[in-house]
């Protein structure tokens, strides 16, 4: 993997170096500022995230002042400018003030890294929630709503209670920026945090086996810089595409931010369907599909000018196959009031492809409402939501490579049922999959399944129907957003299109949805580890305290 000298020279130049330098400079400043009496890396993480939100708020305030009227449905400029600026200043003062009191710890344990991740994401959620409350887009009393909205922004889930038309330009920009930055932060987490946990990061599970989630450089900062750069380039490309396809310039910028991050927020009530343009939908299909492709794979294919790399990747092949098969199925499954001539028309196929790509990449854009599709295809789309995109991509969900691994695991168990003493190593192509990898992947799926059951029961108790509750739980856990709806008592969801689920649940359901989104983004295992870390004192008390049930002597094995 060591690059050849000529390449290395070329890499030294350019944007990547700039990014790395900027990060280092910020790091230096931070170390100089945070020299207080209290030694706590965790607090610093949370406060830095808060402080970093301030310039974003400011940028969005400026955006609102300059262009707000051109984006917002109300056509007014500067509605959000003052609240956003004030919120930004307040957050910055608060965060920097407290930061001054803190000091870095000498050593950080793995457990702390994880707690830092959780605290950091909650800080980001808090920042966005503050913006929502400050601009009045959410009632000041509705804290649960603000939490769910902010979680949707940070995790890139297209689930909201606020129609895009009710928001000012500043908030529209903030939501799009929030999803994009959430994606960028996810890359950092992917490279820096998750590998330490052994769950879902680079080089940990699918990475070694499929070569689609592996490090690009010996140092994590290098990998991070490359991936962020690719992410940015992809965003710009999609923005240019949207603009060329005829979308207004500002709109295309905002939509590109949510397309590349597979977030899915739109400035329009009818999502991308509002533009009613085939070209725009094609650009979106490309953008979303690219968002679901492994970033390291894409980077290497581009850098080495080797498109065949995609074909060689088992995961990519399955990803594309899934998209194609599902598109055929969604196109062909009969729908009410749609004849065969229409089915074979280009428009219908594009519509199906759009729905499939939107769901498997966990973006959640809509050209038509999911509810308008045939019921069989709704079921199929729900399964695709569960699967999600490729590993180390911007997409959420279970990830294609894990599905592939589990399939071969099941195959081995079937063979072992026939030949009980069979010894066989699982392999994808030339590489073998270690048993611990299989364990991690299975654990992740089982945890997700164990989480979905109570979550859907709570969602059902807070105002959704059975179908709505189950599909919405799946959808939020996979960071998609839209879900299916039954036709009876929650029929308004079926009419509204399927982004109204969050609107239909009470505060308990909104908090549940927000937590599901966060769990989905961090991966359920990481969330569970975080919980176990938080619960550590209690567990330790039980384990070492007097409550422990004694095991009878001599029964213990090993």
């Amino acid at each position, binding site marked *: 993997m060591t690059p050849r000298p000529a390449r290395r020279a070329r890499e030294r130049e350019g944007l990547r170096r700039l990014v790395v330098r900027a990060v280092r400079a910020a790091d230096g400043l931070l170390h100089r500022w945070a020299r207080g009496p209290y030694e706590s890396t965790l607090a610093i993480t949370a406060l830095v995230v808060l402080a970093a939100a301030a310039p974003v708020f400011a940028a969005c305030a400026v955006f609102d002042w300059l262009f707000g009227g051109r984006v917002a449905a109300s056509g007014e400029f500067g509605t959000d400018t003052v609240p956003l600026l004030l919120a930004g200043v307040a957050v910055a003062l608060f965060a920097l003030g407290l930061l001054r009191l803190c000091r870095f710890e000498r050593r950080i344990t793995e457990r702390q890294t994880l707690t830092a991740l959780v605290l950091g994401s909650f800080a980001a959620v808090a920042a966005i929630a503050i913006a929502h409350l400050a601009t009045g887009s959410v009632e000041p009393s509705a804290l649960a709503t603000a939490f769910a909205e902010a979680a949707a922004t940070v995790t890139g889930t297209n689930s909201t209670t606020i129609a895009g038309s009710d928001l000012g330009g500043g908030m529209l920009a903030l939501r799009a920026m929030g999803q994009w930055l959430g994606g960028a932060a996810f890359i950092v987490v992917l490279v820096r945090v998750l590998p330490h946990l*052994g769950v879902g990061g680079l080089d940990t599970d699918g990475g070694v086996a499929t070569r689609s989630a592996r490090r690009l450089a010996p140092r994590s900062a290098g990998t991070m810089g490359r991936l962020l750069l690719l992410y940015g380039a992809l965003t710009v490309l999609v923005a240019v595409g949207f603009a060329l396809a005829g979308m207004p310039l500002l709109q295309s910028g905002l939509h590109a931010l949510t397309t590349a991050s597979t977030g899915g927020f739109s400035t329009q009530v009818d999502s991308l369907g509002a533009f009613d343009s085939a070209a725009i939908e094609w650009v979106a299909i490309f953008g979303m599909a690219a968002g679901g492709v492994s970033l390291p794979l894409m980077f290497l294919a581009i850098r080495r000018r080797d498109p065949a790399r995609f074909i060689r990747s088992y995961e990519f092949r399955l990803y594309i196959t899934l998209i194609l098969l599902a598109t055929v199925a969604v196109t062909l499954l009969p729908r009410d009031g749609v004849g065969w001539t229409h089915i074979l028309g280009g428009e219908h196929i594009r519509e199906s492809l759009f729905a499939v790509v939107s769901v498997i990449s966990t973006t959640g854009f809509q050209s038509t409402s999911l509810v308008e599709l045939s*019921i069989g295809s709704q079921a199929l789309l729900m399964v695709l939501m569960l699967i999600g995109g490729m590993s180390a991509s911007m997409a959420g969900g279970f990830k294609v490579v894990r599905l592939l691994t589990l399939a071969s695991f099941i195959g081995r168990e079937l063979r*072992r049922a026939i030949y009980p003493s069979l*010894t*066989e190593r699982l392999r994808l192509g030339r590489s073998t999959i270690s048993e611990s990898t299989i364990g991690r992947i299975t654990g992740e799926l*089982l945890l997700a399944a164990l989480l979905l059951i109570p979550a859907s*029961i709570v969602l059902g108790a807070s105002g959704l129907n059975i179908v709505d509750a189950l599909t919405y739980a799946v959808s939020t856990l996979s960071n998609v957003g839209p879900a299916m709806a039954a036709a009876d008592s929650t029929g308004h969801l079926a009419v509204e299109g399927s982004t109204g689920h969050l609107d239909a649940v009470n505060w308990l359901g909104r908090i549940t949805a927000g937590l599901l989104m966060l769990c989905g983004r961090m991966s359920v295992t990481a969330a569970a580890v975080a919980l176990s870390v938080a619960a550590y004192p209690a567990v330790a008390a039980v384990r070492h305290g007097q409550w422990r049930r004694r095991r009878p002597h001599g029964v213990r094995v*090993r």
Partner: protein
Amino acid sequence: MSGLAVLGGRRFESTPVHISGVALVLVAIGMAVSTCVALIDGGGGALALAGSAGITASVGSVMYLSTTASGRADSPLAFAAVAWAWLAVSIAGTMPYLFSGVIGWSEADNALFESISGFTCTGATILADIDAVAHGILFFRSMTQWFGGMGLIVLAVSVLPALKVGGLELIANEAPGPTADRFTPRIAATARRLWMLYGAFTLAVALGLLAAGTSLFDAVAHAFTTVATGGFSTYSRSIAAFDSVAVELVVIVGMITCGASFSIHWHLITRTKSQRRSYSELRWYLGLIGGAAAALLILNSGKLDLGDNVREAAFYAASLGSNTGYGLTDYTHSQFWTPSAQLVLLALFVIGGMTGSTAGGIKVLRLQIVARYAVREVIRARHRRAVLPMRLGDTTVAEDIAARALGFVLLYLGLALAGGVLMTALGNDLETGFSGAVSAIGTVGPALGEAGPTSSALAFERGSRPVMMVLMLFGRLEVFPTMLMFVAAVRAGTRSRHVRQSARPRVRRTTRLDRQSIRAAPQETDRSGVRGINSPKSSTRSARGS
């Protein structure tokens, strides 16, 4: 004997056909008993039942007599034998319905559905008006579930000790039946005791129902389906037809008892020492039913008054927690039951009863393994080098057994999902389709949506019912035999060659990891093979996953 004459007296060596023959003969005996019931009752159907009995018996005896079981007994053969035998009896079971005209010939697929639903103890019915059906046929219908509950092959092994076909392999594969836990050194004796216990429970429930005031016919028919955790009733309104708390109590106790492991019952009754982990499973099982009842109570508290609420919560937690599927009131009606309460029921569909019981679902033991596994992965994410044996209660589960249980659960969930997608693609709505698939593979019976307990399986589109039939067979035989029945039948003939191949570890490139695993693997499998099946002494230490 005619078969023998035709074949010139030569016997073929085919275990699946041999076993299927025995099973068919047993079903024929059941049909004959039902004929007697029909004659005593006088409500008709006797001729149809007698005819079916005759045909089934002759086909069965020809199959039995013209073949022999092969001398060796191994997994592929056992898979094939069990799966084909179940298919054979399911087909034979259609005859009484068709001959008596209860189900028309143009709806032969419905008859097959009813028969499979019976033998797999599912309890989903396509009879729209059960009350109008002759008692003889209804008796046979309940009897199919009774046969299916403990398993025809267990019965065959218990009554035919001469059936030298490796009874343990067969019994272990006829799923919810006892899994490799023998009470006696001889497997035939174990099987006999299981059926004795099963018969005793049936008698107890029947007497209880009689005492609660039902007629003799109803008592016996419901005892059959309660003990089998099947769920067929002789009334369209199911248990609600009695409208009696006493009957409900008897049924609840019966269902919970038979959803628990029969080997625990045996050990408790004979006061022999049992496996400790069974008790941990029992605790989980009772905890789940109790927890579900409590959850239902809380979730429905706004909709039902307290008396009805307690009654329905207890009944449905027991009925669906043991995957029986008796109905009381219509829980799919959103006027009475909240959606989240119905979701609790859906979770019960998936989980099912204990291993070694007559219930369906993934079984509580596997849920335990799954939960432990998930927790262990969380711990392992923090302590990567931790060596964590998987403990259930006071015993440790061997890795390969845990892996098999996991493979099963994943396959089960995958099949349920795929079945759900197929069901919806074939015209059911999302709720009915998915819950129908889950209900079928869990051998429950009622589903959610349009196919609630007071409705019938006619609520599913006709084209989608074959999917359910396949899922029911998958669920009752615990997926692996049905999945491998064709593979196994083909490979059974060329077994020796394949075994020789598979004995060689399939490793092409040896890495450091590989070498470790090769060293570790044979040791592991050997140990589990000894413990899990053959050695009762050491089986106290390892739980058998499937």
